[in-house]
Every structure is written in structure tokens, then in C-alpha cells.
């Protein structure tokens, strides 16, 4: 098995376990606190990764537009994304909320189609149908997963 696949498996394990640990932590902490600590640790790790793989020169921002767009991404991913996602987990539980995150590629595809002019393939549409059906099935049991 290639190193790349092992790293992808490590990423899936990290995100999957991390979500559950966040939920466990939020039994005694606020989502804001957990999000800030997680963001700080991720920032440190990514900084070490960038410095190690590309050198410190890689931190130089290419342009003002790049800085502006990554700022918007930071707002969307951490305040609008992770913080809301953690609040959602605190209310509805990991079992209900984790599969909903699978809808992310659908919205990304919808944006690519409407704003980017891309055309989805038949397999993409089949994947879309599977995701929506899966989420709907999970939601039918939403009141039974919390003890």
C-alpha cells in the first residue's frame, strides 16, 4: 500500500476521531473554546508542515487578493463552518450530524455549475443521489440516536 494512501487513511481517522472527541469534550466545554483550541493546534501543525516541506519562504503571500480570499475562507471554514458544525454536534449528536457533512461536495458542485459553468457527469449525479438518500435515511432516525 502506497504512502499516499496510508496518509489519506490517517487523515480520515484523524477527522473521524476528532469529531467524536470534540463531541465528548463539549459535554464539559463550550463549542467556542473547543474550536479555538483545535484551530490553534491545526495552525501549528500546518505551519510546521509548510516550513518543513517548502521552507519558510513559502509563507510569503503571493498577492493582496490571495490574502483577501484566504481571509474569507478562514471566516467561512472556522466561524461559519467548524464552529456551527460543533454547535450542531452538541445539539443533535455526531451520529446525525456527521453524515450531513457529506452534503458538502454537493453544494460545492452546485456552486461550480452555477458560478463556474461546469457540467456534472452522470456518475456525479448518481453520487449526489446516494448522498441525499443517505442523509434522508439518517434523518428518519434522528430522534432515536441520542440516549
Amino acid at each position: 500500500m502506497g504512502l499516499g494512501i496510508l496518509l489519506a487513511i490517517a487523515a480520515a481517522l484523524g477527522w473521524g476521531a476528532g469529531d467524536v472527541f470534540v463531541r465528548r469534550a463539549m459535554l464539559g466545554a463550550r463549542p467556542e473554546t473547543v474550536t479555538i483550541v483545535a484551530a490553534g493546534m491545526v495552525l501549528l501543525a500546518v505551519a510546521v508542515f509548510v516550513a518543513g516541506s517548502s521552507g519558510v519562504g513559502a509563507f510569503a503571500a503571493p498577492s493582496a487578493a490571495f490574502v483577501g480570499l484566504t481571509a474569507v475562507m478562514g471566516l467561512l471554514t472556522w466561524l461559519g463552518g467548524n464552529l456551527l458544525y460543533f454547535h450542531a454536534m452538541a445539539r443533535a449528536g455526531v451520529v446525525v450530524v456527521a453524515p450531513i457533512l457529506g452534503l458538502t461536495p454537493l453544494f460545492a458542485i452546485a456552486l461550480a455549475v452555477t458560478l463556474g459553468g461546469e457540467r456534472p457527469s452522470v456518475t456525479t449525479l448518481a453520487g449526489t443521489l446516494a448522498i441525499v438518500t443517505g442523509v434522508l435515511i439518517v434523518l428518519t432516525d434522528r430522534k432515536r440516536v441520542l440516549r
Partner: protein
Amino acid sequence: MSAVTSGIVLALAAVLSFATALFIGKQLVDDGSPVAVIAFYEVAFGLTFLAAARARSPRAGLMLGRGALGWTAAAGLCFAVAYTSFYAAMSRIDFSVGAPIIGAVPLVSYAFVLIVLRGTERLTVRSVLGATLVVGGVGLIGVTS
């Protein structure tokens, strides 16, 4: 609105945010910016915004009990490993190979729910079936992207 319903609404709002950020990120990658550098700036700005929002709402205390501190640190460590492994993986394999593996996150979470949240949440046949369909769908889209 019940807590579960409000949680579902918040999750959908989070999905919209993630998807929009992904769309912007894809434009930057297409322009030739390295993914890991984009991620560094994104997280740095995200942390800044989180800290600013926290400073504006002093009632939201940052205190952590000992148990919560351990789980928070474990979560942060897992996410740190996940992010760096993901970027390292993407420099070695095609996205179409990596995406289906990353898409399995809900089922990985379910496995950890059985261990860590046994007294808090329960897995049902329908939730496992639904999550499996989601993972399959994400894999299908990833393979063809």
C-alpha cells in the same frame, strides 16, 4: 424548534460555509497557489476571527475542566494529524484516489462513537445504512472528479 432540529439546521449552514470555502479554495489552487499555504492562511485568519468573536462575547468563558481539556487536546491533535496527513497525501496521490478514503469519515466517527460516546449516543441500523450510502456517494463523486 427542538435541539436536534436546530442542530440539523446548523449543520446545513456549516455545509454551505464549507462548500463556499472549498469553491474559493479551488479557484486559488487553479491559479497555482500551493494547497498547504492556502490552508495555513485560512486557519490563521480563522483563528483570528474566532479570537475576535470570543473577545466580543465575554460571557462565553474559555475555561476547561480537566476532562474536557483532555478530550479537547485529543481532538486538536487528531485534526492536526488529519490536516497535515491530508496535504502530504494529496502531494503523493490523485484526488480521485484520496477523496473516497477521506469520504469515509462518517463511518470512522461511528466506530469511535461506539467506544467514546457509548452512554451518550446510539447507532441504529438506519443511521449506519444512511452513512454508508453517503460514504459511497462521496466516493463516487471523488473518483469521477
